[in-house]
């Protein structure tokens, strides 16, 4: 079945440093949609960005990701972390159903 792997459970960064959160996926569906969701404390997940086009960079709110079907990856990046980026980040796959990874907690220190 479909699966999403986020290898880092916790990422701790100093403000101003670059962010990279890893996401790989498995699906037999030939045209998957990939999403990144962000969840702040005591809130519900909300969409950060999404993609269904191979090798096309998608950007939103300073974050960007590129879907690479050849490597089944959709890593999230940002050039400079801010304190307000501290949150839980989920990678999700829409193949036949919407499947989430286990999430990566990002903690940005001053």
């Amino acid at each position, binding site marked *: 079945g479909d699966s999403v792997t986020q290898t880092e459970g916790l990422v701790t960064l100093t403000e101003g440093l670059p962010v990279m959160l890893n996401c790989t996926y498995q699906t037999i569906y030939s045209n998957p949609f990939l999403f990144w969701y962000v969840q702040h404390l005591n809130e*519900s997940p909300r969409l950060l960005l999404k993609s269904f086009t191979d090798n096309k960079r998608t950007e939103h709110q300073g974050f960007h990701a590129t879907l690479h079907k050849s490597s089944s990856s959709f890593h999230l990046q940002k050039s400079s972390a801010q304190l307000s980026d501290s949150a839980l980040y989920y990678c999700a796959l829409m193949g036949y159903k*919407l499947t989430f990874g286990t999430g990566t907690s990002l903690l940005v220190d001053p």
Partner: protein
Amino acid sequence: EAAVTQSPRNKVAVTGGKVTLSCNQTNNHNNMYWYRQDTGHGLRLIHYSYGAGSTEKGDIPDGYKASRPSQENFSLILELATPSQTSVYFCASGDARTANSDYTFGSGTRLLVI
């Protein structure tokens, strides 16, 4: 704006009791999902639906039933609640496979089974 509303926001249930979690969406979305969120496990899919009258088992359906009586409403039912079902439950709705796909979440239901 599209909205997903869950009720109740908080619930305390007794072991062996029946619990019903409700979800209503005004998005006219076909797809609706129920997830539970636990530390270390992320969002795990319990049941989902492609439209009124349909329910599908997700990845962890044991101990849960679902009901989709209309486009707008999707319920999660715990017939015999157990302490292991203590969790935060999220409902989501979305359109399948469109360029505008955006799965919107409700505010969540915190369930404590004692």
